[in-house]
């Protein structure tokens, strides 16, 4: 074997190598993409001027479709078939993701633009108790509904998250004869229409046990809806924990329960937080079950165990049904607050999930 020795030159005499990022979009490529986009826009303008087609939303969709089509044609003409296929797939997939985001962006934009008019500082600190049906939107607020929503969703999470995670632990860590049965029931539970969950609590708790309407009753109905989502998501998250970690823990002499509490659950922590978030997302906007359990009211009821309570979805539903514009404006503002509330919660949960334990 011959060994070649590479003489090592004096490092100082070496020119600094130019750094490259082969995957980065070059200026020329940027210009080309901009060109294609420009052509798509011009094409759209021509089509919309020449034909009866009209509307802002339609033109955006048309321009987007035109851009994707032109880009696909362009790459197929310029590149060899393999590379063209690859680029086409990239464009189509990125395009689809963009299309999927359109309705979301549209809803957010719509709610913000409609809701911002009804927003004022008093919206968070006042109720509708002394507000007449024809008062302007600047009178009164949704304090009672915000308090109700926070309490009901909070209580429902307190009930459903531990139960859901325990169910997930049973399904994933203690498989046995009953596993399939339990999983089947959990899956069936996720198919329960929300109005049925409300009806169930209404018949059993509100009427039969004579407990009356309350935030707690609403929370129970919501937790019925939340439980399957949390349980099945959490189960998938626990399954992502590598078996090697469980075995290592057992091999150190840990009992099963301690392996679950000290290794499996902490390892799956951020996944379990996601499970909770999805559960909250499932119930935060529910309206139907609340009509039969919390019922709704125009004044603050801080006690969730007794008496009718409002909530943001109920508030929105009851305002928007009105013919009076000021009431409708309140409803939109309520919807905006609901979205902001859920968004804040998600952000906080994400941050909480990401924080790594320092030494």
């Amino acid at each position, binding site marked *: 074997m011959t060994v070649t020795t590479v003489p090592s030159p004096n490092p100082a005499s070496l020119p600094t190598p130019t750094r490259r990022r082969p995957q980065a979009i070059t200026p020329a490529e940027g210009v080309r993409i901009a060109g294609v986009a420009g052509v798509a826009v011009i094409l759209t303008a021509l089509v919309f001027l020449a034909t009866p087609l009209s509307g802002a939303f339609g033109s955006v969709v048309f321009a987007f479709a035109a851009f994707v089509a032109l880009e696909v044609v362009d790459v197929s003409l310029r590149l060899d078939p393999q590379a063209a296929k690859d680029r086409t797939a990239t464009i189509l997939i990125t395009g689809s993701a963009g299309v999927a985001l359109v309705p979301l962006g549209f809803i957010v934009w719509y709610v913000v633009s409609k809701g911002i008019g009804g927003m004022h500082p008093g919206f968070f600190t006042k109720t509708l108790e002394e507000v007449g049906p024809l008062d302007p939107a600047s009178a009164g607020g949704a304090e009672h509904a915000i308090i109700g929503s926070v309490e009901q969703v909070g209580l429902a999470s307190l009930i459903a998250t531990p139960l859901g995670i325990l169910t997930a632990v049973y399904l994933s860590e203690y498989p046995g004869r009953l596993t399939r049965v339990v999983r089947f029931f959990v899956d069936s539970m996720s198919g329960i229409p929300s109005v049925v969950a409300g009806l169930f609590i209404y018949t059993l708790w509100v009427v039969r046990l004579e407990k009356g309407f309350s935030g707690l009753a609403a929370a129970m109905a919501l937790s019925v809806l939340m439980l399957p989502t949390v349980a099945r998501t959490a189960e998938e998250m626990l399954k992502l924990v590598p078996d090697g970690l469980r075995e290592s823990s*057992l091999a150190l002499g840990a009992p099963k329960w301690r392996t679950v509490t000290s290794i499996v659950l902490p390892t799956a922590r951020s996944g379990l937080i996601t499970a909770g978030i999805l559960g909250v997302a499932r119930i935060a906007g529910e309206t139907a079950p609340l009509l039969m359990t919390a019922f709704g009211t125009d004044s603050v009821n801080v006690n969730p165990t007794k008496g009718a309570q409002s909530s943001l979805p109920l508030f929105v539903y009851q305002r928007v049904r009105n013919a009076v514009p000021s009431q409708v404006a309140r409803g939109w503002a309520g919807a905006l607050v609901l979205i902001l509330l859920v968004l804040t919660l998600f952000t906080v949960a994400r941050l909480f999930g990401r924080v790594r334990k320092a030494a």
Partner: protein
Amino acid sequence: MNMTTTPAPPVSMIDPAVLPTGNGATLEARTVAAWFAEHQILDDISLAMPANSVTAIIGPSGCGKSTFLRVLNRMHELVPKSSLAGEVLLDGADVYGIGVRPAETRRHIGMVFQKPNPFPTMTIRENVLSGLKLAGIKNEGSNDDLVERCLDQAGLWREVKDRLGSAGGALSGGQQQRLCIARALAVSPRVLLMDEPCSALDPTSTLRIEETIRDIVGSVTIVIVTHNMQQAARVSDYTAFFLGDEGRPGTVVEFGPTSELFTAPNDPRTEDYINGRFG
């Protein structure tokens, strides 16, 4: 691999009787058999692994070496529908005896896996100490001393002493494996089972771990599964050759002092295997 021309001399062929007596225990398998459902994997395995020695288990892939290790520390029974037969004696007491808790057995018979798997949510220090918490053991001395001693035994102390607080997963593969060895040592096991501990590592890390094995064997009995003949020859005092043919369960073909097994095997199949003619 040319074992015939240069028979690798075992590093230490010390008579077990004069081995420095430490915490290690003798481990003896008696007529062990094992099944996954109806599929028999091991049959009639009897091996005596002397205290404070290194026993290597070699044999072709799929002959049941890992299964055998897992029978020794009661991990085999964790697989659904698995079963076993025979006895495993730890210093004379059957680990499958009535009233013996599996967790207790596993604490005394530690295990290092093929793939390094430090606990990802824990720091290096916490990883070393994890066994105490997991097994519910009280540490009489100071935790700092224990961490230093175990990491030192595992040959990792100098590399990590300034970053005990960083995540265990932030180490290189070889370092992670040594961290796993330190973790296993922290609960003072009497036997340490190692299932191909170096198969995912580079030659330097492998040598470091072999050094570690020779360093700790004074205080713990070691059973190591390896596919690397030189490694078996370098680190072990005894070697067992396992073989299982298509459809037939694995058995011990030959067991004896490593020097004899590698230089003058009794069975032609052993000779063929260590010379790389099959497997």
